[in-house]
């Protein structure tokens, strides 16, 4: 065991007794198993093929302490106001350094059949539902950082929609984090369970300041015919390491959209796992990667087609400037009896500087014979002819670059379901191109 992983285990031991759910033996056991799995596997290294493009070296050399600190009020307010002005987050749950902040939150009025609360509160009121699903969508051994989250998360969001319920207003879940001076680790956690025919749209955002390790896990369980769209805005601090697992189980005829924008952090890795378990299940994955300076962003997806006529559609676009690197590893596996699978995957990168780079790895493992699978990947620069065309009409070089970059990014931004989120992302992309050398949203 390397030193920082040892530190992490020490922090976990110190924390364990104070974490929520002590009254739930099943949860206690899950936390135990998870920390054991983490101890056994340790922090993933780049020797591990699935983590090859994730730059997590700082996790090995730095002692990130559990985040319990506070965040300056004006900083919190500035972030939240930014979202509110963008029209995101009229109904919201805010977590500051992993702890629920009721005074900053604005929850919808309670509706029968819709449970929207914290994990800590749900442990008391919906214990069996919580323990039935928490940690059920991924293997701790294969996802050591997610296992660490399971062991150490202090709280999180719990959403349960009974059959045919609809979350009336899109919910914004804001994870605000701050490391005052010393490196701090935060483990945001979401559990979303939608029973048959239920529907919801959520926006999950990450922002903060200082040297952070934000290690998030979102688990999604969709019953037959349920529909969920999750939009993720990763805008963590310029000094942050962001790791994230979004793990979904999708039932018959259900559809799960995961739309993720990786903008912030010094280095980030997001993994999306979609298990298409029921016939006619579908998933749409959208990935927008914006990199500058020396940022690294890794997006890894695994889509398992396990039933008939399942459908997956992935579109990833990366805009990379400075010395940044992007990576997209898209694995699609089609089980032998998952006939009539339709799986499409495309990844395009726009390299704005000669020092930026993109690694794309499609992996198709197809055991069924009646399937339609496609993938495509391209890396390129801004089209010189198009740039000249715009400039020849009087549009200044910087603006021409911005227009073309935006047009490039739009194809994936347009897949984010909420108008306000698309507008917000446009602003972010424009801002990043205009200030070509700045990274991170608060910086």
């Amino acid at each position, binding site marked *: 065991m390397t030193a920082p992983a040892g530190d992490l285990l020490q922090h976990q031991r110190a924390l364990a007794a104070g974490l929520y759910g002590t009254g739930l033996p099943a949860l206690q056991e899950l936390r135990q198993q998870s920390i054991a799995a983490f101890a056994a596997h340790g922090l993933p290294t780049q020797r591990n093929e699935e983590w090859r493009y994730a730059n997590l070296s700082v996790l090995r050399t730095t002692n990130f302490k559990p985040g319990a600190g506070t965040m300056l009020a004006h900083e919190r307010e500035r972030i939240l106001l930014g979202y509110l002005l963008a029209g995101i987050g009229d109904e919201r749950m805010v977590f500051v350094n992993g702890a629920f902040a009721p005074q900053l939150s604005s929850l919808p009025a309670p509706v029968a059949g819709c449970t929207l609360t914290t994990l800590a509160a749900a442990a008391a009121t919906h214990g069996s539902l919580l323990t039935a699903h928490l940690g059920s969508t991924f293997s701790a051994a294969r996802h050591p950082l997610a296992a660490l989250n399971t062991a150490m998360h202090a709280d999180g969001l719990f959403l349960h929609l009974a059959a045919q319920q609809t979350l009336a207003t899109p919910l914004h879940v804001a994870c605000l984090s701050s490391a005052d001076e010393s490196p701090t680790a935060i483990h945001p956690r979401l559990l979303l369970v939608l029973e048959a025919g239920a529907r919801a749209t959520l926006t999950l955002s990450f922002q903060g300041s200082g040297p952070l390790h934000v290690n998030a896990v979102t688990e999604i369980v969709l019953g037959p015919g349920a529909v969920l769209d999750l939009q993720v805005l990763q805008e963590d601090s310029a000094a942050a390491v962001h790791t994230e697992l979004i793990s979904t189980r999708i039932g018959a005829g259900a559809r799960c959209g995961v739309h993720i924008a990786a903008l912030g952090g010094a280095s980030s890795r997001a993994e999306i796992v979609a298990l298409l378990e029921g016939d006619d299940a579908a998933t749409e994955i959208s990935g927008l990667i914006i990199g500058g300076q020396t940022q690294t962003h890794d997006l890894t997806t695994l889509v398992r087609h396990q039933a008939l006529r399942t459908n997956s559609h992935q579109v990833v676009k990366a805009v990379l400037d400075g010395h940044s690197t992007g990576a997209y590893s898209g694995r699609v596996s089609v089980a032998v009896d998952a006939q009539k699978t339709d799986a499409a995957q495309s990844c395009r990168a726009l390299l704005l500087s000669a020092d930026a780079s993109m690694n794309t790895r499609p992996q198709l493992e197809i055991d069924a014979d009646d399937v339609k699978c496609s993938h495509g990947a391209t890396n390129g620069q801004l089209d010189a002819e198009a740039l000249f065309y715009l400039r020849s009409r009087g549009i200044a070089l910087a603006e021409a670059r911005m227009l*073309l970059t935006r047009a490039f990014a739009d194809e994936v931004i347009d897949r984010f379901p909420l108008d306000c989120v698309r507008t917000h992302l446009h602003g972010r992309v424009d801002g990043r191109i205009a200030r070509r050398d700045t990274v991170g949203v608060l910086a």
Partner: protein
Amino acid sequence: MLEINGLHARVAQGAEILKGISLSVGKGEVHAIMGPNGSGKSTLAGVLAGRERFEVTAGSVTLDGADLLALTPEERAVRGVFLGFQYPVEIPGITNAYFLRTALNSVRRARGQSELDAMEFLVLLKQKAKLMEMDPSFLNRSVNEGFSGGEKKRNEILQMAVLEPRLAILDETDSGLDIDALKVVAAGVNALRSPERSVILVTHYQRLLDHIVPDRIHVLAGGRMVKSGGRELALELEAQGYGWIDAHAGGA
């Protein structure tokens, strides 16, 4: 208005394409440039508009006395230079209307005029599109994406009509147009003609010159202006091709 003097240009580090071109276009004049394929017509147009792939190795170009070659393409555009592309560029993801509004507002800003908001612009654009007999649906499509050859050329003239340049250089805008479209394009150019504006028409066909009557016709061959004359030159070229000029010019 435009003075070209002893202009030499090449593709960066490549062979020379323009081998000493001089041309003077006065205010309000229309000049036609004809010449065989590969003679350097588009290169000349590109050099005037500021195409970076060409390198000027000798000579000068001034617009109203100011050194044009020192300016970026966008600076030339806001000073009133417009290039109608021989091969208009497709730009997916940017609508024609948005593109043109951005362009027009850039030009207006540079002229110290107020910018037009989306509504004001739309009114103007619709009026110009009507002039060009263009269906308004083209305005909301991505720039030139999926446009037919003729539609792209019409779109070039629409842009010209909106931007109202002082020097329009139209590189084979008539190529690929049917008779009706040719008339529309010619009407668009003629509508722009004024004592203050000049036009350079690059064309292979004398029929365009029936609709837009030029003041002068020049023949470019092998990177040099080998002949200049009045309208009758176009008719001679149409009848005899370029062979007789090469003989006359003695390979000049």
